[in-house]
């Protein structure tokens, strides 16, 4: 049973992304402990092996590290690493979609740029 996990992408990817989001937002700080796979799997009602896969992926990305006998912790510099990776993927993940939709409804590049300039966000 997934509460806010969707069916669009592999669960373990969603788990790792959520943890990355929390790091970016400051909910999880560097050198802080991350919930265990058991806690994660119970919280999201998913297979512990899947939760473990998500965690392991983050270990491979050097976002998390393991303190033997204690658990998983956020690595120093993790935030920076995440930002760098996401910047690289930003175009494919988000921008492409905006352009496709804009094309579909006939918004040209000028209008799009104006929207961004006028935007009150960020």
């Amino acid at each position, binding site marked *: *049973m*997934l509460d806010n*996990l969707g*069916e*669009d*992408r*592999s*669960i*373990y990817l969603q788990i790792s992304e959520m943890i990355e989001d929390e790091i970016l937002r400051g909910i999880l700080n560097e050198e802080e402990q991350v919930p265990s*796979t*058991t806690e994660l*799997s*119970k919280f*999201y*009602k*998913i*297979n*512990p*092996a*899947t939760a473990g896969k998500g965690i392991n992926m983050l270990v491979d990305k050097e976002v998390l590290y393991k303190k033997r006998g204690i658990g998983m912790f956020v690595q120093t510099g993790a935030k920076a690493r995440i930002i760098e990776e996401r910047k690289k993927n930003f175009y494919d993940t988000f921008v492409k979609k905006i352009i496709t939709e804009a094309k579909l409804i006939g918004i040209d590049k000028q209008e799009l740029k104006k929207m961004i300039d006028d935007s009150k966000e960020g």
Partner: protein
Amino acid sequence: MSVLSGKNIVKKYGKETVLKNVNIEIETGKIYGLIGRNGAGKTTLLSVLTAQNPATKGEITLDGNPVWENEKSLSRICYSRELSPVTMFGPNNFKVKDYLNAAKAFYVNWDGEYAKELVKLFNIDIKKKISKLSKGMMSAVTIIIALASKAEITILDEPVAGLDVVAREQFYKLIIEEYSETGRTFIISTHIIEEAASLFERVIIIDNGEIKFQENTEEFLARAYRISGDADAVDKATEGLKVYHPESLGRNKVVTVLADKPDENFAEGVQVEAVSLQNLFYAMCTNEGREAM
């Protein structure tokens, strides 16, 4: 890691063949989901795998040792069946505690304390007769026996039938907890697919007495897609692929596809979405008249 394997299993009841040449492998240390329609053969398969029912043909082994009448194999398995409020002689007058006492006698690793905790959790009156239990309570007893058996390979047949949503969530939590702690193997057969789908490391789909798929859930779903768009574009994009449950509304067509490998790049002009296990299963079942799964 151990393997419970069934090779070339055939099961006939009289003239009816309920299991047709089934080959199945269960590796320990994983949570399996067994899904199939009513009458597909789930219970029969589980009965035969656990030697509670003799196979007409075929071999069932655990680590190469036969399961049939074999103490060593049987002591590692628990198949907790749905309880029935009636027997062929009238209402089932066994009390819950009769079942629990029998379980204690026969399951080698029975954990009485854990059973007590679970009885309290599910609020069961163990002095009550089975015939007087609600469907939810009967499911709860099945679950209690399965979990407290502490068997290496634990099988639950429709464990959440009759449980309300609160109890169902409780059940999933219990399985996750127990699995995290002990790494026990669980095989759960269920109709309520979507809730449990993310629990299953591997999924087994049975239809009409045959196993159609037994795969890693994630890898299986990674190659399933929902393709929609203009009918011609959809047909072109899905040429050569296994297509299920085509639906049309005007010129818009939606199909469910199972590709050979994941992340296929589909042609432009079609929308590609992921499919949940339940929707994939539904699409396969409602293929009405087309080729079987």
